[in-house]
């Protein structure tokens, strides 16, 4: 069954690269970039899970995807002149 996990890992790598390409295009607004970084971090935690490390995956999902995204949006709504949309 390890072929299944290998195929899932390759697909997740493709999706991570796509999400990162969304983030680095010029002229992109800040909330989209934060969302893309959250998506990359979420899929990275699935990669950790496929490497048979469920505890690392849980920590990465909670901190990298949940807390960091929340913190970025919180700060962005407090910063003067932060762009919307």
């Amino acid at each position, binding site marked *: *069954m390890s072929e*299944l*996990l290998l*195929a*899932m890992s390759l*697909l997740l790598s*493709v*999706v991570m690269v*796509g*999400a990162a*390409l*969304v983030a680095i295009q010029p002229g992109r*607004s800040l*909330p*989209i970039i934060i*969302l893309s970084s*959250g*998506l990359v971090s*979420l*899929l990275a*935690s*699935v990669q950790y*899970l*496929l490497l*048979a490390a*469920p505890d690392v*995956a*849980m920590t990465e*999902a*909670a901190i990298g*995807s*949940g807390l960091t*995204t*929340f913190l970025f*949006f*919180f700060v*962005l*709504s407090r910063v003067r002149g932060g762009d*919307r*949309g």
Partner: protein
Amino acid sequence: MVELLIYLAAALAGAAVLFALARFIKGPVAADRVVAFDVITIASITGIVLAALAEQREIYLDVALVYALLSFLGVIVIARYLERGL
């Protein structure tokens, strides 16, 4: 037999993730990208369940539970930001 069906299910879920990635790359407004993010998260919950079935390890389901919680929190935070700024 069951392994073949699990492979087929994983292929279908992967196709769904690819469609959602296309919408995430294209999506004209921010809410489109948030919907694509939600769909990718839910499809990865399904992928985690399939991986748990393939590896016969129950501990993977805890990660799926954390994922369900996190997709909800993330979408709520982003929606409140888009609405009036947290």
